[in-house]
């Protein structure tokens, strides 16, 4: 290649690379906007709530006096509700996604299910609350309990889990499926031994953003009757004697962190705003903690699998 040509090419590359740089900057800026917003929010919460973030805050019940009020019943409630939500939404969501992606024949029923799933994602959360009030609380007689709340939130995040899982499943190349089938694997073996393990990373994403959504939800659980003042704890899930596990807590009344926050933010006293902020910090911490396992797993999986 002669010299002018090379210069021409360098010019072209420089022009193209300008886009690389522009994009990298734009990307970084977008990222920063997101992260900075989060940091701003978090900083605001910390700045406001720090004085309240003392051990006493975690082990006291709500109270009319802001200094004495704590989040014991709220964080215990959130933990238990999230447990139910995760246990219900993840298997149900992953199973639905597997059905839609790997089993469903391409017919109208599948199309209906598919449209329906994404449609559900747009239903306002309060409507899930109305549904749950009728269905879980009254029809199934689960009462205004941890179980009802967990199931409600599970329904709420189901679409997110399903959609993310489906995309993860779809990303597994066809050649891998062919290889498994060719060895005599049944459909389920193919799915459970290959497609599912290889798509765990994407599934984790669905679980993470689903649970993150659930943990911050207020409206639907207010509708089904989460309580704002509750100064006792549910039955412990683990007991000292055989069979060591107890399910009485499922039917207990409860409150959760966002409701506690919601309540505090709407109090007239300024001091409660600090409590709300402190609770916000704890809530974000809990979210990270809750998602920690999923985040770690996703990291491991994505490092290992490259097509």
């Amino acid at each position, binding site marked *: 290649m002669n010299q002018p040509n090379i210069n021409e090419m360098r010019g072209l590359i420089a022009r193209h690379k300008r886009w690389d740089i522009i994009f990298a900057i734009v990307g970084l800026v977008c990222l920063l906007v997101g992260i900075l917003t989060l940091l701003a929010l978090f900083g605001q919460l910390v700045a406001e709530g720090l004085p309240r973030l003392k051990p006493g805050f975690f082990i006291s019940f709500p109270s009319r006096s802001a200094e004495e009020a704590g989040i014991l019943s709220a964080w215990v409630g959130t933990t238990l509700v999230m447990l139910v939500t995760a246990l219900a939404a993840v298997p149900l969501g992953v199973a639905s996604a597997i059905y839609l992606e790997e089993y469903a024949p391409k017919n109208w029923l599948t199309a209906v299910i598919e449209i329906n799933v994404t449609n559900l994602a747009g239903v306002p959360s309060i409507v899930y609350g109305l549904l749950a009030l009728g269905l879980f609380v009254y029809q199934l007689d689960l009462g205004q309990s941890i179980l009802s709340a967990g199931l409600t939130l599970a329904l709420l995040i189901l679409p997110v889990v399903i959609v993310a899982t489906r995309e993860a499943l779809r990303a597994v190349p066809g050649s891998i499926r062919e290889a498994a089938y060719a060895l005599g694997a049944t459909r389920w073996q193919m799915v459970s031994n290959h497609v599912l393990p290889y798509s765990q990373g994407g599934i984790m994403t669905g679980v993470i953003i689903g649970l993150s959504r659930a943990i911050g939800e207020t409206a639907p659980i207010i509708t089904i009757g989460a309580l704002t003042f509750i100064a006792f704890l549910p039955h412990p899930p683990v007991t000292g004697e055989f069979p060591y596990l107890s399910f009485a807590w499922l039917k207990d009344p409860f409150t959760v962190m966002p409701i506690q926050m919601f309540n505090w933010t709407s109090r*007239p006293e*300024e001091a409660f705003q600090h409590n709300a902020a402190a609770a916000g910090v704890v809530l974000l911490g809990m979210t990270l903690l809750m998602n920690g396992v999923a985040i770690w797993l996703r990291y491991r999986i994505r490092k290992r699998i490259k097509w």
Partner: protein
Amino acid sequence: DRIVKIDGSSTVYPVTEAVAEDFQKAKKGEIKVTVGISGTGGGFKKFCRGETDISDASRPILKKEMDACKAAGIKYIELPVAYDALTVVVNPKNDWIKSMTVDELKKIWEPAAQGKVTKWNQVNPAWPDAPIKLYGPGADSGTFDYFTEAIVGKSKSSRGDFTASEDDNVLVQGVSRDKNALGYFGYSYYSENAKKLKAVPIVEKAGKPAVSPSFDTVKNGTYQPLSRPVFIYVNASSVDKPEVREFIDYYLKSAPKLAREVKMVPLPEKAYKLAQDNFKKKKTGTGFGGEPEVGVSVEELLQREGKH
């Protein structure tokens, strides 16, 4: 487990919460009390299904709810527990308002004002030629119902072009930031933010003095017509449960102190006495006819025949 279940209005919630907290401490945790917030309407829905023992209500029970309770065979005891004084507020920088008459307020808030009354001097020529920015609670709230009834004369009759929010703190923010703002909400939000707001003294009728909201003016009945009682409704069959009985006794006894503590206005001593009597007698039914009413005194109310 011995549990007292309470749900309902967010306005009454602070008092009930305070009582529940102290009651549980006094009982050393033997009796559990839960208090929810799902609005007066949501509270009555649960109450009339027999799911709660007590319902917090910022307004009297209405016809629809009475019917629902009747259909489910639920009788209730209506007990006023405190006053909520609706407070009209303006920005502290507002130097032209010394007091307002009900008529002036009506001129601003009545439906006919929508889109027409947009400047202060349209209401009173002495006031400046500046836009009015209005803030108020959402049309779904008992506060809105009461204010419209008391000022405009007809419940829910209001102009629509004002900034509404469920959350009174949002209204506080709105008014405190805008020199031309005017808003109304519960007294407790004013008293907690008294530095950022200015309460408007109200002249009930021409010739009467302008009265500012305060514990005393509400309690002695001179702050009119914007003070209203708030209630709890007790399921009559729950009264058979000793824990509920003990709780209500405790409630009525400690309400004067605790209401004040949460910045609500306690009823006169006599009213609590009457309420206790009603409760002991298990006097069921409401003193209202399923319709909202303005300006009734609590004592009178408690002596009325209960309607079902």
